[in-house]
């Protein structure tokens, strides 16, 4: 019995097969685990360790380095408000304070109903609409306290379910296609091409 649901376990194995070495699938697999559980549970990390040929400690140690991974449960919606330089100049700090009051939790905390977790983020690279807000890593156009409150209301009432998937879902488009060739065959082709190139270079040198 795997911790990953059957369909996600299959996706996990596909992800591992994309890379020359299994460990390279670490970050994609952790995103997948977070998609299933909303955060990284011990059981999920143990399974990622098995899939990547590492230990659970190595998985945790890697996951802990990255801001997007949560080692504790979070709300259904993780709301990020940027206060870095471009957003600072556009009132990002005031918007963050307003968000904290509206959601009823401090920065880093979760709202009493367990629905929202609030984060202060670093630059999210969308500075032309500063101050920038993301919900579950989807950009939302909310630059004033009023539009922020409307956003929260929409999220609470499920009006944005189509645009904003639950926390952890990073990518909704699955990979199709791919190169199904033996690596030896590819290497032989490249060696042939390289020999041809060297022959051209030699001919030019003469």
């Amino acid at each position, binding site marked *: 019995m795997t911790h990953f649901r059957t369909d996600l376990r299959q996706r996990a194995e596909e992800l591992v097969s*994309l*890379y*020359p*070495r299994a*460990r*390279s*699938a*670490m*970050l*994609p697999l*952790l*995103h997948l685990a977070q998609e299933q559980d909303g955060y990284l549970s011990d059981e999920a990390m143990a399974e990622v360790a098995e899939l*990547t040929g*590492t230990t659970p400690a190595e998985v945790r*140690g*890697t996951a802990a*380095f*990255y*801001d*997007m*991974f949560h080692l504790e449960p979070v709300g259904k919606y993780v709301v990020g408000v940027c*206060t*870095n*330089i*471009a957003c*600072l*100049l556009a009132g990002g700090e005031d918007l963050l304070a307003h968000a904290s009051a509206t959601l009823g939790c401090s920065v880093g905390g979760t709202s009493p109903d367990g629905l929202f977790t609030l984060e202060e983020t*670093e*630059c*999210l*690279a*969308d*500075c*032309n609409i*500063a101050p920038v807000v*993301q919900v*579950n*890593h*989807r*950009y939302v156009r909310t630059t004033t306290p009023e539009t922020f409150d409307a956003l929260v209301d929409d999220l609470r009432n499920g009006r944005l379910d189509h645009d904003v998937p639950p926390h952890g879902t*990073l*990518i*909704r*488009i*699955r*990979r*199709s*296609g*791919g*190169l*199904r*060739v033996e690596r030896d065959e*590819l290497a032989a*082709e*490249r060696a042939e*091409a*390289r020999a041809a*190139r060297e022959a*051209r*270079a030699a001919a030019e040198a003469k």
Partner: protein
Amino acid sequence: MASLDAPQIVSSRSKFADSFTLSRYLETGGYEGLRKALTMFPEQVAAEVDAASLLGRGGAGFPAGRKWSMLRKAPVSYLVVNGDESEPATFKDHYLVERDPHQLVEGVIIAAYALQVTQAFIYLRGEFALGLERVQQAINEAYEHGALGRKIFGSSFSLDLVVHPGAGAYICGEETALIEALEGKRGFPRIKPPFFPAVTGLYGEPTVVNNVETMSNMPWIVLHGGAAFAALGAGRSAGTRLFALSGRVRNPGVFEIEMVKNTFRDLIYDPQLGGGVIDDRAIKAIIPGGVSAPWFGPELLDVPLGQDEVAEKGSMLGSGSIVVMDETTCVVRATWRIIKFFSRESCGQCTPCREGSGWLERILYRIENGGGRIEDVDLLLDLCDNIAPGLTWPPQQTTICVLGPSMPSSINAAISMFRDDFYAHVQHGGCPHD
């Protein structure tokens, strides 16, 4: 007057609402560059890129052609595209991956062909969820279209392309840290030498790492020739470039303009570009190339937007992001927020950066919030001197990577230009702007 006659090389499709779809891409000349490249020898494609004099668009500005040619002796194993765009106020790669993912994919295939690589990765910031979906969709469509996979467009060249999500770490934009992340590890920059992944890269094999915008230029360069690209711009700064303008301007955004032919003033004030400062206020300072760059005062607004032109004035064009601070901006608060960013993003390997960033952040915080002392101002500079001895530009390095030595830029600039503002905070017992 701004010079806006140059062609839109990488941003021409963004005016279409469906710019990210294969159908729009094919209607507007998509994959023609790749078809042409496949009729050429790989070294001829590389020679065109070399002739274009394209400087890498990631931030360091290393010539893309030379990055490739350093490797010609040993075959390259992997091509990795750096789409980790996290330098504060930089948002041009984000614009490209969401609006023109096929252009990026085509550029990667062309570069892979020139380098004769059969496995390529696009590393994208995890926070770009929509960008990841658009690029994955483009890759799926490219396979379907025959532009990726086995024997591309009937040629003898095959390529597999994988999009790899990051997970939130500024440091992964540093190319050796990016490779560590791609190997499934913490994003710790690698000890140098070797200086280039070209020598020891992914899985210890020769690897080329190029930026998203650099790759997005490839289709145009192949179609129109390297000489046509090199004819734009001036000096070492060839072609056009995407500039990301933000801060206290009326019309912030990403603008593709010819390098060197325009100045900071053109970009900020031209009605078709930045449209001027909000409420017509005076400019206090600008950050000319990402928060790692020393600031410019208003007296330097007429410096042309070129790599060497900005370097001559003691800063850098860096990641092509320009932040405008007007006369109402508190420079102490701005500096504090920039250093807070570095403190948060320091990977923790090197003492000067790990410890220094926290000290600097706390000192700036207390000056801004009423706990500052007069001697704190010089203490900041002393600490900076420990991280980047001599406070020179470009900075001296005491650390594995340039993150730590990037911190003194803004502090040194802010204190040199606005020392009295710092003193005013101490005397006022807090921020006079509050």
